């Protein structure tokens, strides 16, 4: 960003620094708000359909364009030209506001996503907290959508979704706490800088919790109760159609990408990778591009992981889902938090290498202990809920 600003000033000497910065900001914001949604949605719907199709032994989209590549574009055109219906009993203002809020809330998260060295909208010193806090806007949008449709199913679904979102926000926060504890900062840049060894390898527990919580937050299978057609028709947006429906759809895919991006940043070292910073300077254009490529590779990998999970696991029942969040992820997360805090203060782990190993051992210990505890409980109790958690139905 800074480099672009100075380049701009060099280009047009009359330009003052604030103005140049404003222009750069505007361009980047425009890219996030207008270009990113189109690219993300088109690319990931295609990817998702193809991957799922492979898993289910099908071909997937293959009509529009070569290999069905233009399928996403065709969908977009369809959405744009669909009639937009507002039910007569709906609360019009709130009804129209909801999809807008849903998509704005997601776009705002992108502001703190470091996609390449030096390329980040705002490296806030409360970055991690910001990610969680802005997520609340989406929750609000869902409640508004559900309520304003004046439809029993929509409202019921909104309630369920919100219950799910808030239930998984807690494990997510705990996972983030573990990361912040290890990195000593909430700033995205500093968290990346702290990952000489990616946190995936030192804090696997946090990564697993974060990944599951993120999937649940996005509302994807196996946590896709909001779309459980057989139970609540189609979720809180049952009454929405056309472009307004599209916004919820866009929001979901934007969320998918940013969730994966945040996971990349927090656990996979973000844009860091081989050669970068050693052979190629992070400030050079090549360095930025390389960083962006590393970031994309890692993020797409995580998205792939999520699609994979969707393709293989069946959907949770709502009580299992909530139990899994509250009675498994939260206690385990808290345990992990305490364990990490303990390891960080152990005097004999003063060198960083030993510290990484200590953290890894502590994490694995917590995972093993909690899995053992759950399977023991499942064996002992006849509770269906707990069996669901460990898959001990066999």
């Amino acid at each position, binding site marked *: 960003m800074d480099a672009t600003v100075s380049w701009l000033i060099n280009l047009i000497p009359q330009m003052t620094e604030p103005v140049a910065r404003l222009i750069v900001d505007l361009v980047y914001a425009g890219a996030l708000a207008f270009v990113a*949604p189109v690219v993300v949605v088109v690319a990931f719907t295609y990817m998702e359909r193809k991957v799922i199709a492979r898993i289910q032994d099908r071909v997937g989209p293959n009509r529009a364009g070569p290999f069905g590549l233009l399928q996403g574009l065709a969908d977009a055109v369809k959405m744009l030209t669909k009639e937009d219906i507002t039910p007569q009993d709906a609360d019009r203002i709130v009804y129209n506001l909801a999809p807008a809020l849903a998509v704005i809330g997601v776009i705002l998260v992108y502001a703190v996503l470091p996609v390449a060295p030096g390329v980040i909208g705002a490296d806030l*010193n409360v970055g991690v907290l910001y990610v969680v806090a802005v997520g609340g806007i989406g929750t609000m949008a869902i409640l508004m959508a559900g309520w304003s449709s004046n439809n029993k199913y929509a409202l019921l679904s909104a309630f369920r979704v919100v219950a799910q979102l808030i239930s998984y926000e807690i494990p997510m926060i705990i996972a983030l706490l573990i990361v912040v504890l290890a990195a*000593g900062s909430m700033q995205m840049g500093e968290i990346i800088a702290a990952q000489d060894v990616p946190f995936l390898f030192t804090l696997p527990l946090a990564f697993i919790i974060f990944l599951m919580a993120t999937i649940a937050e996005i509302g994807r299978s196996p946590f896709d109760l909001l779309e459980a057609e057989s139970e609540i028709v189609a979720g809180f947006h049952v009454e929405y159609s056309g472009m307004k429906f599209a916004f919820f759809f866009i929001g979901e895919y934007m969320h998918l990408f940013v969730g994966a991006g945040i996971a990349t940043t927090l656990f996979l070292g973000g844009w860091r990778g081989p050669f970068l910073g050693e052979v190629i300077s992070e400030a050079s254009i090549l360095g930025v591009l390389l960083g962006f490529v590393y970031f994309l590779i890692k993020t797409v990998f995580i998205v792939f992981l999520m699609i994979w999970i969707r393709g293989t696991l069946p959907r949770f029942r709502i009580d299992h889902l909530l139990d899994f969040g509250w009675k498994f992820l939260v*206690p385990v997360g808290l345990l992990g938090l305490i364990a990490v805090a303990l390891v960080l203060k152990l005097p004999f782990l003063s060198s960083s290498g030993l510290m990484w190993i200590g953290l890894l051992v502590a994490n694995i210990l917590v995972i093993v202990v909690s899995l053992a505890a759950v399977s023991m409980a499942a064996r002992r109790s006849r509770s269906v809920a707990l069996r669901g958690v460990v898959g001990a139905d066999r």
Partner: protein
Amino acid sequence: MRSDFVFVGILVVVATLLPVVGLGVARLIRPKKPNPVKLSTYECGVESIGDAWVQFRAQYYIYALVFVVFDIEAVFLLPWAVAYGQLPLYALVEGVVFILILALALAYAWRKGALRWS
């Protein structure tokens, strides 16, 4: 001094344009042929009875309640986590006590069946 939040402000403004533009474009090209059936509430084709006034269960509220408590926990624990490296050993004890008290809250809610979806 330029705040880091300036970009967030700009993004809010720009992002608001997206739905405005999107809906505006759609409004130009989409058809508009309303009829009463289309405008009625969709409930699997069954005529909907009454308002959407279903009596909801307090269970939802209790989940929200536990959530609020843990959210605030995060507000206290985040500064703790950030400052942890600079703090002496007792921060560990204080933090663990804090977490344990909240774990107690969770345990209570759990035992009282507040987290049971029945």
